[in-house]
C-alpha cells in the first residue's frame, strides 16, 4: 500500500510541478506531462519501468476516455458540413504521409507490416498541442487553423480503423509462444476464447449492435432518471459506468476498448445529455491522459538518445520535414494560401499523442519489434517538443513576410467616390456603412483583410482592399473631396495616429472615431476627433436597460433611466476629460481624476435614486404629479392674471 501511495504521489507531484511550468513557458500541457515523466523516470530514477506497468494500464484508460469524448464531439451535421475538407485535406494527408513513411521504413529494411504500422503512427499529428496553441495564440478563426482542425479531426477518427487494423499486421515471428489474440496479455477473461471463427464474428457484431442500440434507446431514460434525482455524483458515476462498461465489453469480445467507447460517443453525440457527459468525463480524461503522457515520458530511454543521438535527431527532423512537405503541397492544392498555408504546414508537422497510443498498441500486438519501440517513442516525443519551435518560426519568419507582402499587394483601384470614407469594415465599421448606404449616402470603405472584403462582397457590399493609414491610399480614395471620415479600424495606436494625420492634413474633414476605452477616448478627443464613441459603451447601456426591464421596471422608465445615466455620464465625461488633460507626465490618470471619478459616480447614484422619494420632488423631473392638495393653491391670485382681464379659474 505504502509503495503504491508513494508512486501515485510521485506521479501527481511531477504533474503538479511540471505542467504549470510548461504552460508558463508556452509549451502546453502535453509537453509538460512528457517532461514530468522524463524527470521522474530516466533523469531522477524515481520510478522504474517495472512499476510503471500497472500505472500504465490505468493511464491507457485516458486514451479510451479521450476517444469517447472525440466521439461525443462528432455531430453528424458538423461532419457533413466539413465533409470536403475532412475527406480531402485530412484523408489525403493521412494516406499520403502514411504511405511515404511506410515506403521509407520498408526501404530501410523493416518488415512490410512493421513499416505500415510505422507509417500510420507517424502520419498523425498532436491534436492536444496544436489546438491548444491555436487557442493561446488566438489563431482559431484563421483559414489555416480551420484547415488544420479538419485534418486533426480526420486523424482522430482515423485512429479507430488504425487500432482495428494493427492487430491484423501482427508478425508471427515476433510472437513468443504466448496467446495470440490477447492484446496486452493481461486478460484472464474472454467471451470469445475457444469460439469458432464465425461465432467469434457473430459475438463481435452483437456487441457492437448492443452498444449502438443500448446507447440510442436505453441511455436517455437512464440518464433522464438519474438527472431527475439531482445527484451530480450519481450522474458522474453513471457516465463512468457507461464508459468502463463498454470498455469491458469490448475487452471481453477481444475488440479495442477505445473503438467501443468512440462508437458510444458518436451514438450519444446528439443526446441532450452530451454536455453533461462531457463535463463529467473530462476531468478523468485529463488526469488519466496526463498520467499516460507521464508514463510515456518515464519510458523514454535516455541512454538510447545519448548513444544514437545522430540517428534519433535525423529521424525526427526527417519526419517533420516530410510531413511539412506533404502538408505544404496539400495546402497549395486546396487553396490554403499565404500565411494560412504556412500555418497549416508548420502546425501539423509533428507526430502526436495518438502515435504513443499506436506504438504501445502495436508493440503489444507484436507488430513493432521491441528494439524499434524506444526509438519511435523518442522520435515522436522529440517532434512534439519541437512544435513550439515551429510556431515560433511561424511567428518570426512567416508572419512578418506576409505582413510586408500585404503592403506589397496592389491596393484595389478605387473607382467610387463618396462624401464619406470609412476605414475598416469589421463588426463595427460595417454597421456604420450599412446604415449610411441604406440612406443612399455613397461611401468608400477601406479594409485591410481580404477575407473580410470577400465576406462583404458575398452580400453585395463593396469595400476596397487597402491600409487606411497610408496617405497615398487616402488620396486615391478621394479624401480631398470627402467631408466625413469614420475610423473603425482595430488598433488603438493606428486609430490615434490616423486621427492626428487626418485633422492635420485635412482639417475640413469631420472625423468620427471609435475608442477602445475611456483613456483611448480622451486621447482621440485630444487628437481632434469630432465625435468619439467607446466601442462597447452603447451596447452596454442597451443591455443595462434590458436588465432593468428584466427586473420588471416599466419599459419607459427603464428607457428614461438609461437616458439619464447617459446624460450624467456625458457630463461627467467632459469633466473627467478636463482632468485627464492635466494628467501628470508619469501617470496615466492622476489622483485628481480618480477622486473626480468617484464623485461623479456618487452623483450618478444619487440621480438614479431620486425616484425613490415619494410625493412631489422638484429634483425628480418628468411626469411627477403635483401634491395631492395642489388644487387648493390654484385659486386665482388677484394680483395676477385678473389685471389684464384674462380669465382664470
Amino acid at each position, binding site marked *: 500500500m505504502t509503495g503504491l501511495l508513494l508512486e501515485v504521489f510521485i506521479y501527481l507531484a511531477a504533474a503538479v510541478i511540471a505542467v504549470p511550468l510548461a504552460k508558463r513557458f508556452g509549451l502546453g500541457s502535453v509537453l509538460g506531462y512528457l517532461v514530468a515523466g522524463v524527470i521522474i523516470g530516466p533523469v531522477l530514477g524515481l520510478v522504474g519501468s517495472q512499476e510503471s506497468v500497472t500505472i500504465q494500464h490505468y493511464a491507457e484508460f485516458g486514451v479510451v476516455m479521450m476517444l469517447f469524448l472525440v466521439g461525443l464531439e462528432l455531430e453528424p451535421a458538423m461532419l457533413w458540413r466539413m465533409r470536403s475538407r475532412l475527406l480531402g485535406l485530412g484523408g489525403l494527408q493521412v494516406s499520403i504521409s502514411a504511405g511515404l513513411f511506410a515506403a521509407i521504413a520498408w526501404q530501410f529494411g523493416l518488415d512490410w507490416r512493421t513499416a505500415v504500422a510505422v507509417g500510420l503512427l507517424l502520419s498523425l499529428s498532436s491534436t492536444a498541442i496544436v489546438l491548444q496553441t491555436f487557442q493561446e495564440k488566438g489563431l482559431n478563426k484563421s483559414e489555416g487553423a480551420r484547415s488544420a482542425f479538419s485534418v486533426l479531426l480526420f486523424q482522430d477518427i482515423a485512429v479507430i480503423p488504425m487500432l482495428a487494423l494493427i492487430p491484423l499486421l501482427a508478425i508471427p515471428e515476433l510472437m513468443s509462444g504466448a496467446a495470440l489474440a490477447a492484446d496486452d496479455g493481461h486478460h484472464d477473461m474472454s467471451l470469445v476464447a475457444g469460439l469458432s471463427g464465425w461465432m467469434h464474428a457473430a459475438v463481435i457484431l452483437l456487441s457492437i449492435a448492443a452498444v449502438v442500440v443500448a446507447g440510442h434507446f436505453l441511455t436517455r431514460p437512464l440518464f433522464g432518471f438519474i438527472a431527475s434525482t439531482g445527484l451530480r455524483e450519481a450522474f458522474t458515476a453513471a457516465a463512468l459506468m457507461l464508459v468502463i462498461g463498454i470498455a469491458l465489453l469490448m475487452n471481453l469480445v477481444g475488440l479495442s476498448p477505445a473503438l467501443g467507447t468512440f462508437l458510444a460517443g458518436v451514438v450519444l453525440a446528439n443526446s441532450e445529455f452530451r454536455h453533461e457527459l462531457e463535463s463529467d468525463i473530462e476531468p478523468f480524461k485529463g488526469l488519466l491522459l496526463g498520467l499516460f503522457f507521464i508514463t510515456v515520458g518515464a519510458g523514454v530511454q535516455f541512454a538510447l538518445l545519448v548513444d544514437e543521438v545522430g540517428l534519433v535527431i535525423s529521424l525526427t527532423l526527417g519526419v517533420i520535414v516530410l510531413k511539412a512537405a506533404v502538408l505544404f503541397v496539400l495546402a497549395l492544392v486546396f487553396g490554403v494560401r499565404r500565411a494560412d498555408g504556412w500555418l497549416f504546414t508548420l502546425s501539423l508537422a509533428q507526430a502526436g499523442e495518438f502515435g504513443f497510443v499506436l506504438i504501445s498498441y502495436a508493440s503489444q500486438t507484436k507488430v513493432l519489434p521491441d528494439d524499434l519501440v524506444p526509438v519511435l517513442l523518442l522520435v515522436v516525443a522529440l517532434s512534439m517538443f519541437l512544435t513550439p519551435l515551429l510556431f515560433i518560426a511561424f511567428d518570426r519568419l512567416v508572419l512578418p513576410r506576409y505582413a510586408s507582402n500585404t503592403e506589397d499587394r496592389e491596393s484595389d483601384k478605387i473607382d467610387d467616390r463618396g462624401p464619406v470614407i470609412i476605414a475598416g469594415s469589421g463588426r463595427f465599421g460595417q454597421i456604420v456603412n450599412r446604415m449610411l448606404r441604406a440612406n443612399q449616402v455613397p461611401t468608400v470603405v477601406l479594409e485591410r483583410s481580404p477575407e473580410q472584403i470577400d465576406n462583404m462582397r458575398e452580400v453585395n457590399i463593396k469595400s476596397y482592399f487597402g491600409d487606411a493609414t497610408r496617405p497615398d491610399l487616402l488620396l486615391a480614395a478621394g479624401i480631398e473631396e470627402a467631408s466625413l471620415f469614420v475610423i473603425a479600424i482595430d488598433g488603438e495606436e493606428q486609430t490615434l495616429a490616423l486621427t492626428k494625420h487626418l485633422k492635420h492634413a485635412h482639417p475640413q474633414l469631420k472625423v468620427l472615431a471609435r475608442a477602445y476605452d475611456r483613456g483611448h477616448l480622451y486621447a482621440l478627443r485630444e487628437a481632434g476627433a469630432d465625435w468619439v464613441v467607446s466601442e462597447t459603451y452603447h451596447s452596454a447601456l442597451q443591455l443595462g436597460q434590458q436588465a432593468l426591464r428584466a427586473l420588471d421596471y416599466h419599459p419607459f422608465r427603464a428607457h428614461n433611466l438609461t437616458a439619464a445615466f447617459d446624460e450624467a455620464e456625458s457630463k461627467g465625461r467632459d469633466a473627467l476629460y478636463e482632468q485627464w488633460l492635466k494628467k501628470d507626465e508619469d501617470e496615466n490618470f492622476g489622483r485628481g481624476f480618480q477622486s473626480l471619478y468617484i464623485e461623479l459616480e456618487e452623483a450618478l447614484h444619487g440621480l438614479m435614486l431620486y425616484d425613490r422619494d415619494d410625493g412631489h420632488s422638484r429634483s425628480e*423631473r418628468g*411626469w411627477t404629479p403635483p401634491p395631492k392638495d395642489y388644487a387648493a393653491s*390654484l385659486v386665482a*391670485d388677484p394680483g395676477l*392674471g385678473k389685471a*389684464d382681464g384674462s380669465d*382664470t*379659474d
Partner: protein
Amino acid sequence: MSARRILVLFAHPSPARSEINRHLASLAREHPYASFVDLYAEYPNYRVDIDREQQRLCEHDVIVFLFPLYWYSTPALLKEWQDLVLEYGFAYGREGTALAGKYFICACSAGGPGAAYDASGYNHHSLRELLIPLEQTATLCHMRPLPPFALFGSRTAVEEGRRDEHLRAFSGLLDHLATKPLDAWLQSEACTVNELLSLSSGETPP
C-alpha cells in the same frame, strides 16, 4: 418701452417635408428680437432638459409656439415640453409664478381651409376654440394668451401663392410682439390674430 424678448419654440418632427413652417422657422431664427429653439433638433429623444427650458422661459417676455396643427393640438414633443417644463411650483401652484405676465401665442398652420374652422364647417369649432387647452394652460400659468396666428389650407398655400404673404405677416407679427402695445389683441375675441394684424399695422384705435 424697450423691446420685448420673444422666445419661438418650434416643433416640427419632419421639417424637411415642411412647406410653410420651415420658412417661418428660418424667419424666426433670423429675427433680431426673437430667440429660436428647434425642439425636435435639440431633443430628438424627447428628453427635454427642464432646467434649461425654464431658464429660457424666464429670460423672455413673449412665448411663441410655432407648429403645424396635429389633431387640433401640438406635435407630440411640444406637448411633452408642456408636460415637463410647466412644472408645479414653477409655472403654477402657490409658488409657481415664474411665467406671470408673459404673453403667450400659438403660431400654427392648419391643413383644412378657413371655412372648415367654423360652426358650419367640418371641424365645427373655430381654431381658437379648438386651442382652448393651450390658452387655458397659459392662463393657469399666469400668462397672457393672445389669439392664435394661423395659416389655413396650408397644404396648398404654396401652389396658391399664399406663402409669401403669410411669411410677411409672420414677420409683422414678430415685430409687433416685440415693440407694439398688445392690449387690444389681448382683449380681442377674434378667432385669429391675423385679422388684427392689418388693424395694428395702421393706427390702433384707442
